């Protein structure tokens, strides 16, 4: 632990998460060396494949982080993602991606209005919006798997490679750069931190906190819809329940990356590492052919124990 002494408190969870990620990869490699005598986890192609899988979760977590930094949460992620994917494939053609993104825009504005002006706890408001979106989409598709297909551009973005790297990684990277810039280099980003840290103080500093909240929810929904568009491209079509597996891992990635669940603290780098941690954890468990039961248990134990470690570190400081 002594190597982390120079790490600032804010970066400590990030360092721990990064170290843990390395441990996971080492365990996985040790396992494959012992059982097969090879180390596939350390090959380039394997890592790229993991990045490609991780990009969907990465987009979801990026958006979720904006909302969690405010001390709120966005439970409408699953069906925002699905609705965006379905709308994109339904509209098709050149307007496919704008159609998907505009779903995100509308959902984000509605969520933001409900949370900021009506002051309904985001937990329940976004849950209701999720349910409404699900209803709309089921009505739209008639309850069957949609027959429409992803456009070539969507497929290209999700599944093809640019200069040897998966295109989806470029999308994830671009969104990450934008969000990093927003959070560190714009007044809006700084206002998100301020509003999450102490809403009353931000309000009295002349920050338009309503707009900050709406903006963060829009960012979250846009990211979710981008993930939906990519995922539809990856699978060639949209399908029911494509968003559900992303909600809890997205929240977990953000929190394991050191963002405080009550808002105000967290770095985007942490969320990136949180995503990588979860992706590698999943893939090592896959390599070990770990049954789903143990995956869930390990997943839960990792979250609780890492948060206990973070908490202990904080207490030791004071």
């Amino acid at each position, binding site marked *: 632990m002594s190597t982390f002494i120079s790490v600032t408190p804010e970066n400590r969870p990030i360092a721990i998460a990064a170290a843990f990620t390395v441990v996971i990869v080492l365990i996985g490699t040790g396992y494959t060396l012992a059982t097969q005598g090879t180390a596939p986890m350390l090959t380039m192609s394997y890592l790229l494949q993991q990045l490609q899988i991780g990009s969907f979760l990465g987009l979801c977590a990026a958006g979720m982080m904006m909302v969690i930094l405010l001390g709120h*949460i966005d*439970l409408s992620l699953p069906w925002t993602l699905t609705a965006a994917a379905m709308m994109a494939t339904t509209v098709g053609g050149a307007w496919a991606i704008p159609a998907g993104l505009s779903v995100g825009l509308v959902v984000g504005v509605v969520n933001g209005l*409900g949370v900021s*002006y*009506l*002051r*309904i*706890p985001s*937990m*329940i*408001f976004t*849950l*209701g*919006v*999720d*349910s*409404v*979106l*699900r*209803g*709309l989409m*089921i*009505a739209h598709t*008639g*309850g069957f798997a949609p027959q429409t297909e992803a456009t070539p551009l969507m497929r290209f973005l999700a599944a093809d490679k640019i200069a040897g790297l998966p295109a989806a990684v470029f999308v994830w990277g671009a969104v990450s750069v934008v969000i990093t810039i927003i959070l560190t280099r714009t007044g809006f980003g700084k206002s998100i931190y301020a509003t999450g840290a102490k*809403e*009353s103080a931000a*309000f*009295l500093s002349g920050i338009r906190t309503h707009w900050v909240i709406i903006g963060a929810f829009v960012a979250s929904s846009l990211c979710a819809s981008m993930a939906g568009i990519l995922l539809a491209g990856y699978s060639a079509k949209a399908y029911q*329940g494509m968003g*559900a597996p992303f909600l*809890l891992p997205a*929240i*977990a990635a953000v*929190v394991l990356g050191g963002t405080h*669940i*009550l808002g105000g603290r967290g770095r985007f780098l942490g969320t990136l590492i949180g995503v990588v941690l979860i992706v590698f954890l999943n893939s090592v468990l896959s390599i070990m052919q770990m*049954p*789903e*039961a*143990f*995956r*869930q*248990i*390990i*997943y*839960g*134990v990792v*979250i*609780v124990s890492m*948060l*206990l470690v973070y*908490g202990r570190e904080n*207490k030791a400081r004071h």
Partner: protein
Amino acid sequence: MMIRFKSWVGRNRGFTGALLLFTVLFIGYHILHPRGFSTSVFIQNANESVVIGFLAMAQTVPVLMGGLDLSVGAVMTLTNTIASHVVTGSPLQMVGGMIVTLSAGTAFGLMNGLIVVFGRIQPIIATLATGAIASGLALLVRPSPGGDISSDLNWALTNAVFDFAETYGFADNGNAAWLQPIANVPVPLVILFVLGVCVWVPFKRTVTGRTVYAVGSAESAAYMSGLPVARAKIAAFTLAGFFASCAGLYLAIQTSSGNADINQAGAYTLNSIAAVVLGGTSLLGGVGGAIGSLVGAGILRVISFYFRILSIDPLLQSLIEGLVLLAAVSIGAIRTFRVKNKLELFR
């Protein structure tokens, strides 16, 4: 008396509104039902409401304390799979199995409480993680759906009181005169009612129960008044675990089997939050109660019954449920516009 009633209504607007909505929906349902009101329909309705009813009660306690328990659905699933193994054999063994099931869920809730209080982790994220653990354990206990719970028990507990008596051969096989007034009451309702009255009502009247409310309303004032804050937090999660295990046990008996369905667990958790809010409990804590959440759960169920009898496209169900939820919380939010000092909104 009238005045006291009026003031009670005034203080329990959320609950009263929920009760009215439920009554209107329920009566409307039976009027519109092609066969009108009948015991069999009523029994079927009751059966379909028990699990969400228990989960709504489970969720209520942490919410009253100003927290949230995202593991209730998973704990239900876990206890459901446990029950499918242990609730078998002779009646005595079955009772023992039920006790094992309920203890397991209660212990899991206790663990949640200890993590939240001593680990100082936010309830929402702690229970998110322990929920995954419970799901995993459920998959271990029962990797594929199955179980062999006695069909007698299933029959007895999912029908009217008369059938219960007949199955176990008491009260003249259900024909005794004293039993007649309640002979047609569905057993699932009796179970919900008895547990609600025997567990929740007494709990609310202990100092610990009152402290749960006090913590949700004003934690620092509760501390200043010398109330047992840590004990109340642990008790809240423990009780949530207990009610969740009641849901799991009933689900096992109702389906005669156990099924570690993780998606179902997640959906039930989210529905339990919706039921709590619809039943007039504030997500900020301090206001509401488990009985209200039962009514909230009832509203959610009755809405879904409508789809069956009206020729509404069942595909719209989720849409309408969502709209009802949003409308209910938005009506509750009107008070926000009456606040004169904007700083008060942030507290």
